[in-house]
């Protein structure tokens, strides 16, 4: 073997080995982060965290019951607006869309999808908070819904268009009208994928902080209804972590762990649903 060939062989082994190192580093980052978060979160979380209201700044103890309920309120609102609108828009894009208009909608959905979440926050502030003169769960819900709509629309469209054309033709040949074909054949055939997309979408907006900062705001107490400033877990984590109190840092870890576990569970559940599905492949 000449020297040059030996060099080429060595280079090949070294470079390919390095790519392996890159992959391991990427996965290691995930596990280090998860491990450290769960380690710190587990030490910090207690029963009070789920049941008590926050204490005044600097005092030890208290919990985030108001933020947990608030997050639930905001996400519920966003889901109620975002999922149906996104789903129907997805049906349009996949089944009824012509050329020009569908292209335009698709383009705008992708554009909206790429808008930084803080800019969505500005939008919701301008359309909801400014007219109402107060931060509210409603404004937060609208902000998150604006993020959820394009995600749901595009994933619904994607999974519905991957339903084989022959299924549609079969139903139409039996005399079903188009909407009946969609409702009884296409949507059921794609429902796993559609559900997965929806779960992933909700999981994504559940962790969003930036659009809530000046829409739902913050509240030291339970918010009474949807038109009051409302605390939420992500905003609470941000405020607790950046405050100068030791005990608040502990609560930030606890809240971070709770939020992360919820989001990751939703993600894993969604992937399991999809991987069990036979009718629709991604």
């Amino acid at each position, binding site marked *: 073997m000449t020297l040059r060939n030996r060099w*080429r*062989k060595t280079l*090949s*082994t070294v*470079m*390919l080995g390095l*790519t*392996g*190192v*890159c*992959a391991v*580093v*990427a*996965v290691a*980052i*995930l*596990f280090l*982060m998860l491990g450290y*978060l769960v380690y710190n979160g587990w030490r910090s979380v207690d029963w009070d965290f789920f049941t008590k209201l926050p204490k005044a700044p600097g005092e030890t103890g208290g919990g985030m019951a108001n933020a947990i309920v608030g997050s639930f309120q905001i996400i519920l609102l966003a889901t109620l607006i975002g999922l149906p*609108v996104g789903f129907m828009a997805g049906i*349009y*894009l996949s089944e*009824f*869309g012509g050329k020009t208009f569908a292209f*335009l*909608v698709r383009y*705008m*959905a992708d*554009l*909206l999808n*790429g*808008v*930084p979440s*803080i*800019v969505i*926050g*500005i*939008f919701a*502030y*301008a*359309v909801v908070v400014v007219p109402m003169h107060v931060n509210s769960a409603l404004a937060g819900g609208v902000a998150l819904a*604006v993020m959820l*709509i*394009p995600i749901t*629309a595009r994933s619904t469209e994607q999974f519905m268009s991957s339903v084989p054309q022959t299924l549609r033709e079969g139903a139409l040949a039996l*005399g079903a*009208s*188009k*909407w009946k074909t969609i409702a009884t054949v296409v949507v059921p055939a794609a429902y796993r994928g559609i559900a997965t997309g929806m779960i992933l979408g909700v999981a994504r907006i559940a962790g*969003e902080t*930036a659009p809530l900062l000046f829409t739902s*705001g913050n509240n030291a107490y339970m918010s009474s209804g949807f038109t009051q400033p409302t605390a939420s877990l992500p905003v609470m984590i*941000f405020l607790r*972590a*950046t405050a100068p109190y030791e005990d608040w*840092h502990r609560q930030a870890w606890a809240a971070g762990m709770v*939020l*992360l576990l919820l*989001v*990751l569970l939703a993600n894993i559940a969604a992937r399991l649903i999809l991987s069990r599905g036979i009718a629709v492949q991604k």
Partner: protein
Amino acid sequence: MATSAAVSAPPPSGAGALLQRLRNGDEVARLITLAFASSILLVTVGLIYQLWTTSALPRQKFGFGFLTSSMWNPVSGQFGALPFIYGTVITSVIALLIAVPLGVGAAIFLSELAPPRISSTFTFFIELLAAIPSVIYGVLALFTLVPLMRDYVEPFLKKPLGFLPIFSGPVFGFGYLTAGVILAFMTLPFIISISREALLEVPTEQREAALALGATRWESTWQAVVPYARLGIFGSIFLGLARALGETMAVTMVIGNDPGIHASLFAPGYTIAAVIANEFSEATGDLYLQSLVALGLVLFLLTIVINAMARLLIIATTRRGSANP
């Protein structure tokens, strides 16, 4: 029955036709879904309209000078976007410098070398990394990365390289470099998963031909496979860049919040998203608030352009291989 009548009868004209189609139900369904689809259009146009009208004051007062002024003084009513644009670009560039080699390397391993089982397991974990909320990256960065950078990484870099302006000055832990590192972690999953898909699209013949010519495994990968998938890889990088530019919470927590322009990467700075997050709810006076909205508009335009480029590149690779551009 109505359906078969509609099929066999010659299409009636005018109002009769519309009525016929409405009775069928299909037209109703089409119109309902069309209305929902239009709402996406409406929201996007509304968003652009709001950003434009709510940033009218600084546009009138400063014009393009808004973009080039480095003065940010709410007390004297001076607002310039340059320190924030600078911070946004610098942190994103640092993020890409770290994430691109790491991400493309990992993608090569996952698509070319790893057995399918390992590849799919790793990809699963890496995609989970993308699902972690930004504020959680922020907490981790604030409590672990900042002390780590301050006590070890930055002094380590400063000792041999301190003569360079970018590695000079006092170390705080909070600053461009720390923000760049956390952004690298956040963009990594996008780069890996999309580059991997682009590499998997490369036909096997491409590899076999190179190997048959006597290339080593690495030469075949680097000279035959990677160039073939380059558009998809560039697309993934642009997508990662768009994410990094608009990322808010994690950066806000570690950037140091200083509206100045510093050559040193160790120095605290500010990004567009971070300044909006920190100052929006406390902004007093219309000019201050609208200047922040104008910053939002700048960020919006920046990400649109980058996203559009990413999408074009990714579409170009999935339609046909990029071997003959």
